[in-house]
């Protein structure tokens, strides 16, 4: 098989991995080709609107495992291919110097054995770093059941490592991944966290993970609660959510006609709230089996349930209060605090600072005044109705409804 065909097969096989970040690396640069950029750089966008930052490929798609949701599972009759470390290194260098990519994202199916596979990933990045003196970003998957020693060796050569948690609960994992156990995923994850704390230059851009959304009946509460746990316990940099794309027909998987993209988007927003805005999963969800509201973003959902905490007064509110107002983000909150020292702020000023008044106006006062009279006494249903009227998402699952607003922040989830 020639390199063109391999790239086609093993690129397509990797596309369901949603991570694309190339940011946050703190590896010291000595010499050699390229550099990393702390904010990360997108190099292109595919026809589905997702950014390409790294050359995202599998080392091989020949797999001894048989996970129900995976296109590469053993029981599927698909075209199979395997790269050599040399081929990947050459591709990476040549794409990099043409500025197509920011670096390499290398994942793999499990061929022969977990250790064989991990060894190949190690050899590939070793070749890149030492023979080719490559200094760009590298993200490598840690393979479940691979020896911790191999994972450790690899970790010193890469910017980021990740183990996919795959599914939001042990029950779902047992149902869909007969070959993987919770242990086989959490053990390497914990190991990476531990070594990263002890050693310099070990996965300096941190660890991430991803899980599939919508293939099982796990609730959003369960998902966000798990993420919260992963951020706290394993100090993960990111948890990625991947709306399940029906690639296999398998009775164990919930039937989905199209990937639940809007749900995925809401989960990213909720994730952002717990990671950056200091919300907790318990605060966001009223009861434990609950799902996020698809009609409004999670911050609005939370605010409507907590109207007794509003309105807040812009000239007095603390930073913590400000960032909880729908429509006010980290940046606007900081600006408000710095600026109100100089003069009192009115709604026009807030607009210029980037506050989205469409949402915020129901929850704030400026110098004791509301945006329009009677705004504050509105009942939650009324506010919600007003907030959803314009982009009326009556059929939230339909692709045609994904207008600009809904999708501006698929990956960041910033609201």
């Amino acid at each position, binding site marked *: 098989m020639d390199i*063109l065909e391999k790239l086609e097969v093993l690129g397509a096989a990797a596309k369901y991995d949603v991570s694309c970040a190339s940011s946050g690396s703190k590896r010291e640069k000595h010499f050699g080709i390229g550099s990393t950029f702390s904010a990360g750089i997108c190099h292109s966008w595919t026809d589905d*609107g997702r950014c390409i930052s790294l050359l995202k490929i599998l080392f091989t798609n020949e797999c001894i495992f048989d996970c129900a949701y995976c296109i590469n599972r053993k029981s599927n009759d698909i075209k199979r291919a395997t790269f050599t470390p040399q081929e990947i290194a050459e591709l990476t260098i040549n794409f990099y110097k043409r500025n197509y990519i920011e670096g390499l994202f290398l994942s793999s199916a499990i061929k022969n054995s977990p250790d064989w596979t991990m060894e190949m990933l190690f050899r590939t990045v070793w070749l890149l770093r030492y023979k080719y003196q490559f200094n760009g970003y590298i993200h490598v998957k840690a393979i479940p059941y691979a020896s911790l020693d191999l994972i450790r060796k690899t970790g010193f050569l890469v910017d980021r490592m990740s183990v996919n948690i795959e599914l939001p609960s042990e029950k779902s994992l047992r149902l869909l991944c007969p070959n993987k156990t919770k242990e086989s995923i959490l053990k390497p994850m914990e190991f990476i966290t531990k070594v990263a704390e002890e050693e310099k230059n070990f996965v300096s851009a941190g660890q991430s993970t991803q899980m599939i959304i919508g293939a099982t009946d796990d609730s959003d509460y369960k998902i966000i609660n798990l993420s919260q746990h992963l951020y706290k316990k394993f100090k993960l940099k990111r948890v990625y959510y991947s709306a399940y794309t029906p690639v296999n027909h398998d009775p164990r998987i919930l039937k989905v006609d199209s990937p639940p993209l809007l749900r995925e988007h809401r989960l990213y927003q909720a994730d952002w709230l717990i990671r950056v805005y200091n919300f907790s999963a318990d605060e966001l969800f009223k009861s434990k089996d609950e799902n996020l509201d698809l009609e409004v973003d999670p911050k609005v959902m939370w605010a409507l349930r907590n109207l007794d905490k509003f309105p807040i007064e812009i000239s007095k509110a603390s930073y913590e209060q400000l960032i909880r107002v729908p429509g006010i983000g980290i940046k606007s909150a900081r600006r408000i605090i710095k600026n109100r020292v*100089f003069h009192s702020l009115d709604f026009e000023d807030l607009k210029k600072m980037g506050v989205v008044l469409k949402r915020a106006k129901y929850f704030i006062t400026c110098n004791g005044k509301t945006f329009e009279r009677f705004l504050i006494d509105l009942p939650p249903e009324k506010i919600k109705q007003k907030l959803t009227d314009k982009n009326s998402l009556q059929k939230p699952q339909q692709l045609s409804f994904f207008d600009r607003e809904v999708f501006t922040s698929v990956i960041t989830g910033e609201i």
Partner: protein
Amino acid sequence: MYKIFLYDGTFEGFMCAAFHIISEGIDKDRAIIVSKNEYQPMFIDSVREVQSDLKAFLEMRKGIIEKTDCSVFKKIYYAFLSDTEDKESYILRYLFLLFTHGKKIKYLYSDDIVNAVEKMAKNVSREIGKYMGLIRFCETNEGFLYAKFEPKNDIIKPIAYFFKNRLNEFCWAIHDVKRNKVAIYDRKKVQFLICNTLKLKVTHQEEMFQMLWKKYFKSMVIEERKNLKLQQQNMPKRYWKYLVEKN
């Protein structure tokens, strides 16, 4: 009567002109800075040509940073690279505000001049950010990497310095086709030249890698998630002209 100050079109030259206006106490509403190439003579104006000199430029830079900080200086530089008409007059007024208000200028969101300069700087910085990822080099028979682009703003300098750090092991040239400016790097330093046409031939290998990249680009699409609108929103069409994967 207006006092017209002509400068050589460079950022340094502009700052020197501003330096003279401010240090000589000339009324801000009567002073206009215009690039030499764009000035159309009007006989009622008093016209003065300002020579770029390093001392005045450094003095000005020091003053700005002392009054505010480096981020404001960078903002002014980015705003200057903008293709906004009359950028000079916005920035000059911004400088006057800066020397009156100091650090506070960063928070004067409601001031129109501050707002306009912020917007210009943001626009430039966004374009620089996009082009860091969207510039495409090809390998030439002449032995260097070559990239063409047509930015809206005049950003070849910051772009060239970004690639000086990134592709420091290669020789390369970046060509702003719209302005006929070329940045050339010889593994030691970057030089900026004016250049109309460049006749180059790509290597045999180059065609293969372009093909590989196109193939890869296509294979990454998840059909079920297709969203061309989102693609265009992230990567507006004006960037497509020189993108391998889009041609």
